[in-house]
């Protein structure tokens, strides 16, 4: 099947055969897709490697056959988004998260839009931790793993901002004890639900909570990028 002018972001590229690359791309209509870019590692390649770098929105022409597609053309669209410094490391985390949590060829236009919006926020220098938490929330939502952030899982009562909870990845917010390493304030869960950035302590608890939730959906594994992001 020929696919023309499909918007995409490159998530990862690895050498494939002698001179080719296997590029994992995120697209709106085909979800994550593995694309073979033939011959791009040759010195005089027609298509330059630079066009297949992450964090640049591109338009792909490809031929989809079975699990992998073959690249026919790629051209940049939109301005170059430069993620420098910590944003670059955060970007690698974002890509690992998307590759590990999504299956190939599972169309998800919402995820593509969230991903693009997140890159724009990071390129614009918005606070990284909060930007990543918003993406994780939206991504889980778009994959059908939506977080239950406003009512407690036992009684179904609205969360108390001042109360302490812990978030169980399977059921949701459960009453917790202060001092528990996984404890999180109701206010922080409500802040994430309302898309209002919490304070530094709140961001730290949300990060702990998200790692646990993501670890659960990975089937108990962990992301390599967690060792890089401090």
């Amino acid at each position, binding site marked *: 099947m020929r696919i023309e002018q499909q918007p995409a972001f490159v*998530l*990862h590229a*690895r050498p494939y055969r*002698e001179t080719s690359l296997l590029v*994992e791309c995120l697209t709106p209509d085909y979800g994550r897709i593995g694309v073979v870019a033939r011959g791009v590692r040759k010195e005089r390649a027609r298509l*330059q*490697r*630079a*066009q297949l*770098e*992450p*964090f*640049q929105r591109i338009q792909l022409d490809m031929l989809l056959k079975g699990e992998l597609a073959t690249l026919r053309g790629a051209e*940049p669209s939109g301005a*170059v988004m*430069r*993620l*420098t*410094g*910590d944003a*670059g*490391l955060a*970007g*690698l*985390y974002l*890509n*690992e998260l998307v*590759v590990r949590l999504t299956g190939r060829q599972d169309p998800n236009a919402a995820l593509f839009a969230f991903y693009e919006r997140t890159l724009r926020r990071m390129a614009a220098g918005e606070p990284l931790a909060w930007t990543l938490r918003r993406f994780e929330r939206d991504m889980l939502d778009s994959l059908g793993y939506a977080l239950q952030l406003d009512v407690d899982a036992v009684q179904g009562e609205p969360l108390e901002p001042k109360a302490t909870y812990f978030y169980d990845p399977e059921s949701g917010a459960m009453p917790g004890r202060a001092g528990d390493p996984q404890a999180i304030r109701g206010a922080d869960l409500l802040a994430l639900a309302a898309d209002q950035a919490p304070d530094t302590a709140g961001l730290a608890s949300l990060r702990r909570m998200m790692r646990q939730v993501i670890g659960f959906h990975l089937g108990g594994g962990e*992301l*390599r*990028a967690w*060792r*890089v992001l401090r």
Partner: protein
Amino acid sequence: MSNGSRLLGELIDALRCLPGVGAKSAQRMAFHLLERERQGGLRLASALESAMRDVGNCTRCRNFSETPVCSLCASASRDKQVLCVVESPSDLAAIEQATGYRGHYFVLLGRLSPLDGLGPDELGLPLLAERLGEGEVDEMIIATNPTVEGEATAHYIGQLAKAAGIRATRLAHGVPLGGELEFVDRGTLAHAFGSRQSLG
């Protein structure tokens, strides 16, 4: 494929582990060695065996070396105050050949890439931090590739240098010599434009 000799078959099969060598080239190589280059073949065999057995990584810079400390690190004539960090031994060779650099090196043997399973430990960054802590290095030249992963690695290493109070510099990137702006890709041009220099 049957060619009447088991050993020949094994040789052809073994040669295919080389990059760019498929069944056909492997067969050509094997026939060439047997027909015309027996001496060369034996030399290759012994060089290959000793290199595979004895070449390890330098304990200072992680470059390939058969001694615990490689000749570059052991050399007294090189400048101990400058340390150049590269991704691979081939990058080191390229810098040695193209520039008059006389300092020391550190070879990462990769770049930070979570999806390839490469984190700070795999790249020997604890060893690099230790080296920076020794206090001999004044400047660290970060010569990782200008890719997204190379840039992220450069940033991470730059933080190590900062923590040790060492000046970190990064290779410039821009329009290739003899190139034409019209044909330079957008990203490179944007970079070159952003880091333009004053004349004179």
